[in-house]
Structures are given as structure tokens and as C-alpha cells.
């Protein structure tokens, strides 16, 4: 902090950092139930988060029990939080931790300090850009992430190119393809590292058949070519090593999500090495007392409605924390919940005796391989605790949801619990 800063201090009961589906739903569920203020700080000019940029339908199914477009969903969640009595402040970015539970904020209304009794981190996730994926080549114009593309097309009504290559085989990759089509840009090729296309079967927002996008599986981009605008990408088959060049004037790097965990790390909060979000228990407590987390910061990424329902869940937990005077005794010692390959991560990552079931009674997992009829095996201390066949596939590129009951029978003091799938 600069020496000439003597910020005003706000003292809401609860500070929610991030005004996307998780943060807004937290606020909407908490505000009517506590005496003090619930303050949501959103760094963008409008609240609503990622759905604001995503101008197609499919939002609100599980949380609002209706289907709406991303922008309509964002407006609805914002309105719900405000009418519930929460204060939603936009263009306000939490930049640093001050001390204890206090943070420092920059906004056009000033540089100020917020000193709440509890904090909910709901900062979401972003896609890894080309640089983080270490794709070499020229640095031309015309290279996007889905976020940047949708921002440009939907919020700023900018032109993109005529012929695109979409990199990635996740749900969001199809969202990018839809946006490109709307913007008058054809998709020359979708490039996916995965082995099969079944995983896209779940895409129901227009569908693969309708989009007629050619897909190159087991393929990666090894070079971007062109100056000053993209002219082509060079791609490589991961199995044969064969390379070829695909002409295009636009490249969209999709998916490959990473939580926006800057505040988690700068606050010294323990990270989950699998998700790279904060490590939480089923009550969504982080390692820092009074700091909770919700949404795609915890599981990069599930759909917006699942993120929102985390908010409903964490609201209950924050309420309990406040009711206990904001200084409840340490929660019971728990055991770690870990994922074994091909599973990359599981969320939440800590199980404590006496804690509630996780949001929606589901464990969220991420797989790197497609398993059509997955059998989930739960082990503890070398012993198989449970085995369960599930009726839905584990598919790369989207969250694999497993009923909470699979961990029934684990012991609170027999060491880490491991989930695997086969």
C-alpha cells in the first residue's frame, strides 16, 4: 500500500469477492438471513460474471429451474442479490489483503478498506491463453481465448475473421464455435488432444451435427503462423507425429481452465494441487478461518448453475460461522480426498466428521480419459471402501459428478481417501 493512503473502512458482516453466479447466489441467500450487510465486490463494470459474455441459451437449469440466455441469467442473478438486500458494488477490485480478514479495494469512488467478519472468495476461473500453453510461433492479431472472443463479439460487437481454428475439446469449445458462427466466421477445424469425440455428445446447445465442425482428435497446435494477422497454424498428430498446416485467420484457444487464485495465494491460503484453487472441505471452508470459497474457483470449470448452487451451500455455512460468533472453534480434523489417474482432481478435498454433505450431494471430478461406463473405486489405507458403477460417462472437458454416498463408510482417522475410475 502506498504511504499516502489512508483509506475509508467499510465493515459489512460478509464480503463476497466476485459478482458472478457463485458470488451473487451466495449474497442472495445470505442477505435476508443476517442482520449485517452482505457486500459483493465485482471488478467489472457490471455484475454477472462469465454468463454476461455468453449470448446463447442453456443457463439457469439447475438453480432457477428454467432455461435462459447467459446475459439474461446474469441480470436475473444480479437483481435477485440486490432485491435480497445485498449491496453489489461494481468496478471495485480487491487488490490486496490488509491484515486479519481485511482487504484493500480500488474503485473510482476511492481506495478503501473492507473489514468483514467473513469472506467468500468467488473469483472464478479463466482459460489459459496461448502463452501459458507455450505455443510458439509469430505473435499476430487474431488469437483469442473464448472469453476474449465472446467479450469482443457480444459486448463490444467487434468483427473477427472469416475462418477459424478452435483449439480444445471441452464444452466451452463448442460455445466458442457458436460465437464464431454468429460472428460470420466459419470453423475450419476443431483441434482436440482427446481420443474420441463422444465427449461432445453432451453438447446440447445447438449440437455438433448442427455446427458441422470438422474435428481433429489426438492433435495439438505446434505453431502459430502469420504477421500481422494469423495466416495458419501448424498441427501435429500426437500418435503419429505427422504435421500439417491449416490456413485460418483466427485461432481460439478454449478451455484449459485455471482458477483466478491470486488472492488465495497472496493470502497464504492453502492450494489444492489438483484444482489449483483453494483447498476446501465440504463446508467450503478454506485454510484461513473465516474465509470460504465457492464456484469455479474450486472446480475449473463446471456449468454456471452448479457454481451458483455452491453459493447457496456456502451461504448456510457462513451463516453458521457468524452465528457462532465468527470465531468458532477449529473444525474437526479431517482426511484428504484425492484423485487417482486418469482423474486429475476432486473437489472438495477434505472430509471432516460432522460436516455437511458437499453442494448438491455431489463430488466433482475431472478426468483426462474417456470412460463410457465408469466404475468408481474408493480406497482408504489400501482397503477398498466402496465400488460404484455409474450410468453416465466420465468425459474429458467437463466435470464428472459422483454421488456423495460413494464415500460412505470411510474412517475419519485412517488416512487419505483415494478415488479412481476404471
Amino acid at each position, binding site marked *: 500500500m502506498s504511504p499516502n*493512503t489512508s483509506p475509508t473502512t467499510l465493515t459489512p458482516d460478509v464480503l463476497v469477492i466476485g459478482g458472478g453466479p457463485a458470488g451473487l447466489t451466495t449474497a442472495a441467500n445470505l442477505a435476508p438471513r443476517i442482520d449485517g450487510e452482505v457486500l459483493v465486490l465485482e471488478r467489472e463494470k457490471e455484475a454477472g460474471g462469465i454468463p454476461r459474455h455468453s449470448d446463447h441459451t442453456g443457463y439457469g437449469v439447475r438453480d432457477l429451474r428454467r432455461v435462459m440466455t447467459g446475459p439474461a441469467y446474469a441480470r436475473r442473478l444480479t437483481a435477485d442479490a440486490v432485491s435480497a438486500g445485498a449491496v453489489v458494488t461494481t468496478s471495485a477490485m480487491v487488490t490486496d489483503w490488509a491484515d486479519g480478514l481485511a482487504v484493500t479495494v*480500488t*474503485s*473510482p469512488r476511492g481506495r478503501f478498506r473492507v473489514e468483514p467478519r467473513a469472506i467468500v472468495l468467488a473469483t472464478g476461473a479463466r482459460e489459459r491463453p*496461448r502463452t501459458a500453453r507455450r505455443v*510458439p510461433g509469430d505473435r499476430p492479431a487474431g488469437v483469442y481465448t473464448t472469453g*476474449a472472443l465472446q*467479450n469482443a463479439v457480444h*459486448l*463490444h460487437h467487434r468483427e473477427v475473421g472469416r475462418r477459424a481454428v478452435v483449439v480444445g475439446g471441452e464444452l466451452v469449445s463448442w460455445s466458442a464455435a457458436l460465437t464464431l458462427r454468429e460472428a460470420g466466421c466459419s470453423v475450419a477445424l476443431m483441434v482436440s488432444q482427446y481420443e474420441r469425440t463422444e465427449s461432445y455428445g453432451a453438447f446440447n446447445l445447438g449440437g455438433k451435427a448442427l455446427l458441422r465442425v470438422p474435428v481433429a482428435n489426438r492433435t495439438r497446435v505446434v505453431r502459430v503462423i502469420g504477421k500481422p494477422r494469423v495466416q495458419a497454424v501448424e498441427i501435429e498428430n500426437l500418435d503419429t507425429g505427422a504435421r500439417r498446416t491449416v490456413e485460418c485467420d483466427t485461432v481460439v484457444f478454449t478451455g484449459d481452465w485455471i482458477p483466478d487464485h491470486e488472492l488465495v495465494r497472496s493470502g497464504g491460503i492453502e492450494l489444492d494441487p489438483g484444482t489449483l484453487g483453494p483447498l476446501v472441505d465440504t463446508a467450503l471452508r478454506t485454510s484461513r478461518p473465516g474465509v470460504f470459497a465457492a464456484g469455479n474457483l474450486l472446480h475449473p470449470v463446471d456449468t454456471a448453475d452448479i457454481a451458483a448452487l455452491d453459493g447457496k451451500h456456502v451461504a448456510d455455512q457462513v451463516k453458521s460461522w457468524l452465528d457462532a460468533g465468527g470465531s468458532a472453534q477449529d473444525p474437526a480434523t479431517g482426511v484428504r480426498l484425492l484423485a487417482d489417474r486418469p482423474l486429475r482432481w476432486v473437489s472438495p478435498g477434505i472430509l471432516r466428521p460432522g460436516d455437511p454433505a458437499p453442494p448438491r450431494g455431489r463430488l466433482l471430478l475431472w478426468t483426462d480419459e474417456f470412460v463410457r461406463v465408469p466404475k468408481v473405486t474408493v480406497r482408504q489405507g489400501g482397503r477398498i471402501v466402496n465400488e460404484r458403477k455409474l450410468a453416465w460417462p466420465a468425459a474429458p472437458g467437463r466435470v464428472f459428478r459422483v454421488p456423495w454416498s460413494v464415500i460412505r463408510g470411510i474412517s475419519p482417522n485412517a488416512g487419505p481417501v483415494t478415488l479412481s475410475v476404471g
Partner: protein
Amino acid sequence: MSNTTGPDPVPAPTPDDGYDVVVIGGGIVGAAIARELAGHEVSVALVEARSDIGDGTSKANTAILHTGFDATPGTLESRMVARGYELLSRYATETGIPVEHTGAILVAWNDEELAALPGLKDKAERNGYQESALIGADEVYRLVPALGDGVLGGLTVPGESIICTWTTNLALATDAERRGVTVLLDHPVTEVTADTSGDGFTTLRTEGGDVRGRWIVNAAGLGADHLDRLFGHDRFTVTPRRGELFVFDKLARDLVNKIVLPVPTSRGKGVLVSPTVYGNVMLGPTSEDLTDRTATGTSEDGFDFLLTKGAALMPRLLEEEVTATYAGLRAAINHPDYLIEADRDRHYLLVGGIRSTGLTAGMAIAEYVRDVLADAGLVLKEREDLPDPPRMPNIGEAGTRPYQDAARIAADPAYGEIVCFCERVTAGEIRDACHTELPARTPEGLRRRTRAMNGRCQGFFCGSAVEQLMNDHSTTGGGCARTCHEVTH
């Protein structure tokens, strides 16, 4: 027409008749020379081929303010770097160029490197640098705990510092312009016509029109040899030497608080790990001789090399995200020293072979060029009415940035409106960068003036908003749509 001895305190630019001196090349060296000469009663033009100042070799170096400890003793380069270190350190304080005096350690990883350290200490002393010390492996790890296994020892160079190369270039060019230099962007030189009419002027044909000068200074960097040939010389060849760099996320910054330098040996030069003034960590550069002077792309081989080196140097660094990758071209020449020579007959001066040390040496080179020109007959009378140097916007982490400045936000809320979240760049800074002297005219120019879009999301959140703001504030084509009247920094 301009007058070398006239009373006019600020020599008016005289494009029709010509300038006393035309400096070709708007990098660090050219900008420093133009600024220095304009401290005298002569008219000066700075001619740049590209659309912005500092858009060539100067924008993509390792951004180290060198003490000159490892130069070849007795060379012009050694003198220029040592003197330049003093000059630029002082100038950075005056103008607000971000600098952090981190110090450096040369780290030895094998017996050959360890055996080379005492010689490097001697060399530093012969270069007039006395502060280096040999340290053991324990001390190296104490200073940089995240280094990989296998360190055998080190040599400290406490004076080595990190600096913002972009702000340095812009400060020198802005200062030059304030002193009356005419800055001509988009003026690539295509042809040179010697003084034919006997009026003492050389004519440069450029894509932006003819520019005439009594003296021409060639500080064209990568293009210096081509230009030299247009003057009838054939004395050197520039080999573009590509250096690729990784810039790691700010969350890696705690891993390294010193510049970690490789020990040069017969087996070649390693790579360095260094903090940056923006709070990132840099790994690189590679070193690859090319023939294509426009090959600023990155390569698979380069990436593999950096990742292999990085894994040994600092394994934990590779667990962090890569925020940006760069490839810069250094102007290597087939000559062991800087090549600064005046051709008195043609009133032409070459400033060639200025490698990456040119960032540090630039202001000293400018003094040297001034003296060479004076010896060659250019009348240089010092001005007594020089304007103050510019105060540059702070884009470094060591100082207070606008988003942290409560008083500044209270006075102008635009400094509280963060547009680029990763780099915490405000709408006020973007506005200023579009309206300042030598304004940003391209997204790349804006990045170098504000850091906007340089962060970990690479425009996921802010790309379009930043572009919109920039277009709104653009002063080309009829003035600023936001009707800003004054620059407020």
C-alpha cells in the same frame, strides 16, 4: 533555416531546408543521441522507420542495467557501459524510470564454471568494478533458496539492476522532443543522396518524404549495415541474433529476488533468471544466429531449450504459469566492439554493433557521439534554457502505482477504474498514454506505456475494453472522442 550559432533558444524545426543533424533510429541509442545533441544550439530530427519509438531491438531485451563488470577491459563498450550505468541511474531517478537495485549472482553449476569465477572477478576489477565477491554454495542458496540442486559457488555483482527498457526509451525520446527534436515516425530510409548542390546537406529519401541534414547519424540497429552501404561503406554485417524469453506469472516473483546470471565458458552461454520491474520473473534468452531480420517469432527449439535450462536452474519456476513469451533480435556484428566512426567527408557518423548493453550504455554513447561530432567540426554550443526532463508514468512495482494512490484517485476517479485486472492498469493511465507527447498509437504501443494486456489473462477479461478505450481516446482522425483536453500527469 536553422542556425548553429544563432540566438534562437529553441531551434525551430526546418524540414524544408534541413536539419543540422538527422539521427536515424528511434531505439534507445538513437533517442539518447537526439536528446543529447538537442541540448545544444542545433536543429535535430529523429527519424524512425516504424510507427513507434522503441519498437525494434530496444523493446525486447533482458532489461538489465549493467555495471559493465563483464565487458572486455579496454574496449569502448567497457567505458560506455560503466559511464552509461552512472548516467542512466541518475536519469532514471530524475524521470521516474522504474529501476530496482536487486544485484546479481553468477552461479557456477560445474567445475569449469567454478574455476572461471576468480577470473571474472579480476576482469570486473579491470573494468573498474570493485564490489564483486566470491561466495560459496551455501551463501548462494541463502540468497536464492529456490535454485535447483548442484550449485557449486557464485560471484556477486551487487550493482546489477533491473530497469524498464520501454520507459527508458520513451523518456529519452520525449525529452528529446521537449528539447525541440522533430520526431518523424513511419519514415523508413530508402535512399541516400549526398550533397550534390553544394549546400552542405545530405538528402534522405524516406517513405514519409525527404529529410535533409548537414550531419547524418546512423543508429539504425538491425538495419545499420544496410544504411551504411547506402553511404558507400562496406565495413560490417549485422547478424540478427534471436533471443527468446519466457516471462512467468507474478506469483513466481517470490522465488527470485536477484538476477541469476550464467557463467560464460567455452561450452557457451547459459540463460539467466531475473525478476522484472513489473513483478514477473524472466527466463532466457536463447541465442540463435539467423539471417531473417524480421524473424521475431518464437520457436519450438527455443522453448525446449528454455524449459530444459529452467528445470535445472529453478525447478519450481516451471510450475508457475507462463504469462508471455518474447523473441527479440539483437544486432550482432562481426566486430568485437562498438563501432562508432565519423566519415568527415560525407558528414556521416555510424553507431553500429551496439548489442544488448546498449540499454545501459545509450546515454554514454550519446555523449561520445557529441564529442566525435564536435571534433569533426559540428559547432555545438550548450543551451542554457533546457526544459526539465519529463516525469514518466510509473509502471514499476517498486513505486506507487495509480491504483494504489488514494489521493490521486480522489482527485481523478479514472485512476480508480481498473481496466486491465491482471496488471492493474486504470482507465486514467490509458487515457494519459493516448494523449501524452509521443502517444500510444497501437495496442503494442499501449502495452509498453501502461502494461495493459501484458498480464496473465492476455486479454481474456480486458482486451476489448482496453481497445475500446484506446479507440475512444485516439487523436488520429479528428481528435479524441472523449474530448479530453489536458494530460493530467
